[in-house]
Structures are given as structure tokens and as C-alpha cells.
């Protein structure tokens, strides 16, 4: 566990060293503030639900930008050789990388937290659903970053890792919904159910309403675990290739 934290800390520090981090932070902060202001008016409901949905959309292009360099950069620079010849396991490397990226994701949530505080100063919002919604965003972030970690273990190229992650993340949300409505799917209810099940936006809905459903939590935790496992397998596969 110590090793995981050591790797995570290094990853987080190095993320802040790259310009990408500041672009992502800037865009995210600016985007959320704009969206918040759009619904910030006297008489409007004191809630964050709309903002949380918007943040969910913002995450589709921005989260892959955080994760794209995690492992691919190690391959490109050759530092992977020194990392993998340390007496640590592939799982520790993957977990450390993902945790470091999660640390950065938490930083991204700071602007959202500030907006909650602004809302709290101006009105009397029900904090329960807002906090549960934030937890939901964290779950989605964890899953997206796990997908990103997996993608960055596949390739040396950050751009390919970025595109792969975005494609997979899209497949898990809007695309799944669109596909579920396709004509041919109607004849196969299990495909339809499956598509609805993997729809991240659908899974997020309860969190946005302020409900913590164990099934939803299991979906995100197991999805995250699955992709981190894929990432570990990808790293290990170089031993059989």
C-alpha cells in the first residue's frame, strides 16, 4: 500500500508539472462557473442538479486528458524499464497511477465545491442531495480514469490514449443510450437492458437525486476495478509477448 501511495504522490506532482493539467483545470473551472451562473438567479431552485449534469458532460473530454499520459509516457520515455525492474508488482504500479490521477480529479472538484459554498451563502440549499451528487461525480471520475489508465497502458502515444479513452467513455454513456433506441435492438431485450445498464449517465441519475443505491455503487466500483485489472493485465502481457 505504501508503494501505491508513493507512486500516486509522484504521479500527482508530475501531473501538476505538465501544462495539460492547467488547461484542464482552467477549462473545467471556467466551464462549471459559466454553467452555474446560467442557473443562478433569484427564485431559481437552490440545487446543483443541473450543474452536476453539465459537469458530467464536461468530464467526457477533460478526464481523458488527465489520464492519457499515466503509463504511455513511461513507455515513450523508457522510464518504464526502471519502474518495472523495481521490486514492486504491476498491480501496485497501476493502482498508484490511478490514485494519483484521482488526486488530480479531486482538485478539479474544488471549483464545484466553491460554487456549492456560493450557493450556500446566497440561499438555503438542501446539502444532502448536493453531497451525494458530488459522490456520484467522484464515482464517475474514478471509472473514467480507470478506463483512461487502461488505454494509456496500451499505447506509447498520449494522443492515441486520449482518443481511445474518449471513445470508450462515450460508448459508456450517450452512445449506449442512442444504441439502445436503435430499431434492431428492440427485438433483443437483453441487449437493450445491457446497454441501459452500462449507461453511466443512467447510473448517475440516482446520485443526482440524492439517493445512494448500493447497486449503483457496485456498478461504479466494479467497473473501475475491472478496467484497472485490464490495465494490469496489459502491463503483464509484455511478459508473455
Amino acid at each position, binding site marked *: 500500500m505504501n508503494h501505491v501511495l508513493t507512486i500516486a504522490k509522484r504521479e500527482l*506532482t508530475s501531473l501538476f508539472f505538465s501544462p495539460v493539467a492547467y488547461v484542464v483545470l482552467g477549462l473545467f473551472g471556467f466551464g462549471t462557473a459559466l454553467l452555474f451562473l446560467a442557473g443562478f438567479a433569484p427564485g431559481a431552485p437552490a440545487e446543483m442538479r443541473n450543474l452536476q449534469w453539465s459537469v458530467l458532460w464536461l468530464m467526457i473530454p477533460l478526464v481523458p486528458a488527465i489520464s492519457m499520459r499515466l503509463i504511455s509516457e513511461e513507455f515513450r520515455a523508457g*522510464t*518504464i*524499464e526502471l519502474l*518495472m525492474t*523495481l*521490486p*514492486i508488482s504491476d498491480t501496485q504500479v497501476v493502482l498508484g497511477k490511478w490514485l494519483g490521477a484521482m488526486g488530480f480529479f479531486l482538485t478539479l472538484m474544488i471549483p464545484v465545491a466553491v460554487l456549492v459554498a456560493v450557493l450556500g451563502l446566497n440561499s438555503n440549499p438542501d446539502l444532502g442531495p448536493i453531497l451525494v451528487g458530488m459522490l456520484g461525480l467522484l464515482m464517475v471520475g474514478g471509472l473514467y480514469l480507470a478506463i483512461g489508465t487502461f488505454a494509456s497502458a496500451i499505447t506509447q502515444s498520449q494522443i492515441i490514449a486520449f482518443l481511445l479513452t474518449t471513445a470508450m467513455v462515450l460508448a459508456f454513456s450517450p452512445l449506449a443510450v442512442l444504441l439502445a433506441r436503435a430499431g434492431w435492438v428492440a427485438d433483443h431485450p437483453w441487449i437493450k437492458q445491457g446497454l441501459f445498464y452500462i449507461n453511466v449517465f443512467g447510473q448517475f441519475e440516482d446520485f443526482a437525486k440524492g439517493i445512494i443505491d448500493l447497486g449503483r455503487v457496485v456498478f461504479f466500483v466494479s467497473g473501475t476495478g475491472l478496467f484497472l485489472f485490464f490495465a494490469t493485465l496489459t502491463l503483464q502481457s509484455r*511478459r508473455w509477448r
Partner: protein
Amino acid sequence: MIQAEQLVKWFGPTRAVGGLSFAIPKGQVVGFLGPNGAGKSTTLRMLTGYLPPTSGSAWIAGHNVLKESEAARAAIGYLPESTPLYPEMRVQEYLDYRGKLLNMSRGGRVRRINEVCDRCSLSHIRRRLIGQLSKGNRQRVGLAQALLHEPTVLFLDEPTAGLDPNQIKHFRELLGELRDKHTILLSSHILTEIEKTVDRVLILKEGELVADGTTDELCGKVQGGSRVLLDVQAEAGAVQAALGEVTGVREVEVIPHDGWCRVEVTPAGKDDLTDALTLKLTEKSMPVREVTRRKPNLEDYYLQLFQENDKGAAKAIA
């Protein structure tokens, strides 16, 4: 300490290493030689556990590299070929990071970081970003991280690449200090480097071991004895003809310069030709201002081994 048994590595249809076996006892410093693409780096990568061999096995300090991978990796210090480091980290921060992942205690890290920084002359740049260091300094950081946990086995892939002559001299001194504590396998292109620092030389060719022995043993296998170098004042053709007449001469190479000729004579056998050659020149009234006898060195052996037109002979000599 280091043992390789029938190591084979294929990359797709290309064979990088073919059936490599050797054993290096504790405390030996071994040089790994061979042209580019001979499989030196691939072999080191297999020994460090980074790449699995296609077949065969290897042991480091008694641990199988694949089956007891983490124990084997804990025993090694490794400097890869291009010294890959994190440019965004500071020297000290990087060494501390490595130390943590190597299970070193806080006190142990502080002590060892001080020691390796001293030893590798990094003390004055400990707070600098690695990305801003010169190639030579980066190389030293690479060496420092390899030494950090006092590993029993050191693998150094081209440790002197990119260093200036002064730094190479320092590195050689450092290697001399390290030889008591570590078993070292280092690869290098610079033959004189290897010759001066190692107890034993392994030469690879197309993924196979073609020579294994001490520098003296290998130099003894060079065909012909000591070469004779002369500086003669005469016309090139005349010198060539005169020295060619001496019995026991295999080859005469003449390079004219400023009215003088630089001559290198290779003997056919082991006999010393110095006397016969100088006598001949005196007889022909050709002034000589310098005579040097050069014993065969590793480079002669290496060149002989890799002479293209006698491919088969390379193996026979080894």
C-alpha cells in the same frame, strides 16, 4: 551470483539472443562486448526481469528471475541504456522516490542518498531538476539510483556513453571502488574502457557468445605477436618494399606524412621482429626516429573476431 542458462529471445521473426549461457561468480566485474544489435541490451533486460526470455532461465543471487521475480529485482541495481529518468523531478526527490519503492527506511534513505550523491559527485546539483541536467550529470543520477540500495548485482548498460574523457576517468575510478562490494556486468562499446576495468570479458555476436575470458587470455588468442610501429624517413614505396623482405612479416602498412612514413608492421608469427626491422632499415640507410612495440590488445582480438570474410573462423578462435 549471475547465472544465465540457454537464454533465447525472439522478437517476432527476429532472433535477438540465441542460447546464451554463462555464470558470473560473486565480486567479478565483467564486460559485455559486441557490435550494435548483438543482443547485449536484450540480455541485460532479461537478466533484470524486464523482458521475459522466449526460453531458458536466469538466476540473480540465487533467485529465479521469472519465478522469484521480486526477490531477484530487489538484489539488482540497473542503469538502462539511455538513462531514462523523470525530467520533472529534482535529483534528491527522485532518489528518495526510488528509495521508498526499494523498501528503504527513512533513515536509510537519508544516509544512502548522501553517500551516493557524494560518490557520484551530485551533491552540488541535488536540488536541480533532472530535465535541466547535462547528459553526463544525468548519467550520474542514473548510476546513483542504481547504487542506492547497495544491490549485490549491478547491471550497467553503456555507462560511459555520452561522458567526456574526464568523466570517463572518474567513472573508472568509481568502478574500482565498487568492485569490492558488487558483482558487476557492464556493456560498452569503448574497448579500452573495458580492458582497463574488467576482470573478464564476454563477447556477443548475433546473439551468441563467441568469446569468454580474461583480457590477457583473449589477447593471447590474437594471431601474430606484437606489432611494430616505426617512423621512417623515406619514400613510401621503398619502405614498403624494404620491410616486406624481412622474414616473418605478414603485413606492412605505410602512411606518409611530412616527408616521413608512419609504418605499422604485423608479424605472421609470435616472434618479435623489432631487431630484424631496424637492421633492415639501417642496411637501406633509411633514418628511423621512433620504434614502438605494441602488444596485442582487446581491440586487435575484437577486430580479428569480427573480420567479415572469415565468419566461421570467429567461432574457431573462441
